[in-house]
């Protein structure tokens, strides 16, 4: 498999065709078997397996495409046809952290456009480009379902809410400096692109209990209802006594 960006196919660098080391391949096969077992038909495992390839290679490599084709009995063309359709699959080596600024209408107007421009200028890279140190890939992203926290920035698909140009520049600087960075709503720290790709392949990393359940905007209606004594009718809607609520928030 080869290809050119212009054709919409994966651009595959020569080194990506070097075969996987035996131990890596063995682990990939074991993981793939686990993924395939989740589905009644094995082709359904393709999306998670492409995430899995990214967890090893940092992008969808030629050897990764061959691996998927091999374990799923597909052609390489079928696999790369799927890989090129989805924006989370990368055609060239991705930075360790994808920083995505939402520039869909609402976030853009609330400040996302300005944040993107300032961060882009600060890093000296544009959309879908990666810093020379390989740390940050900058992207404009579409609506990520957090509009009540606009403007929103995603770092490796963790939420950074209510951003400003200064806060996002601080975020990318910290990531480049190798500091642990904590999302507003998410895991205890932003994991690397490869680590997150492994989670997206369906392998838990033990971080589910980290972070908050909900941010302040998500809780706004609930807080107002509690203040005013508004409840849903019936037993399910019955109000916990203030004492219970207090105990619960410890």
């Amino acid at each position, binding site marked *: 498999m080869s290809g050119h960006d212009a054709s919409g196919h994966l651009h595959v660098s020569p080194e990506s065709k070097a075969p996987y080391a035996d131990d890596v391949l063995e682990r990939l096969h074991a993981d793939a078997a686990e993924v395939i077992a989740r589905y009644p038909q094995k082709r359904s495992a393709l999306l998670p397996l492409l995430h899995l390839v990214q967890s090893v290679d940092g992008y969808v490599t030629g050897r990764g495409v061959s691996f998927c084709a091999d374990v799923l009995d597909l052609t390489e063309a079928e696999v790369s046809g799927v890989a090129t359709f989805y924006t989370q699959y990368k055609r060239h080596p991705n930075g360790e952290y994808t920083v995505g600024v939402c520039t869909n209408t609402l976030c853009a*107007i609330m400040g996302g*456009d*300005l944040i993107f*421009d*300032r961060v*882009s200028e600060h890093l000296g890279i544009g959309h879908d480009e990666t810093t020379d140190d390989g740390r940050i890939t900058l992207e404009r992203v579409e609506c990520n379902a957090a509009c009540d926290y606009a403007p929103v920035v995603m770092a490796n698909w963790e939420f950074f809410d209510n951003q400003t140009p*200064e806060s996002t520049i601080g975020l990318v600087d910290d990531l480049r400096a190798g500091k642990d960075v904590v999302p507003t709503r998410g895991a205890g720290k932003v994991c690397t692109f490869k680590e997150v790709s492994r989670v997206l392949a369906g392998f838990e990393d033990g971080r589910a209990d980290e972070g908050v359940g909900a941010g302040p905007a998500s809780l706004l209606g609930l807080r107002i209802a509690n203040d005013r004594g508004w409840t849903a009718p019936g037993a399910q809607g019955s109000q916990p006594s203030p004492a219970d609520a207090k105990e619960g928030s410890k």
Partner: protein
Amino acid sequence: MNRIENGQGTQDDIDKLVDICDNILGRSFCALGDAATSPITSAVQYFREEFEAGMHTPAHELFPPERSVLFDIQTKEPSGMVSA
């Protein structure tokens, strides 16, 4: 659409937009086709004069984007804010 946003639209552009939307509505294979037309037709319906202003004045002059953002803009002039 982009011509109108940049203040270089024509009366024709507005009519054509509405026309294209009429054509897509109900004929597209999936809901996405209809979805794309809804904001355009309704916006022209309620704010036609703003689209007409797009024949001579760019949107960012009529409505400076800095006024809409949710944070205080600090010192530096926004660069690259002008839509391409």
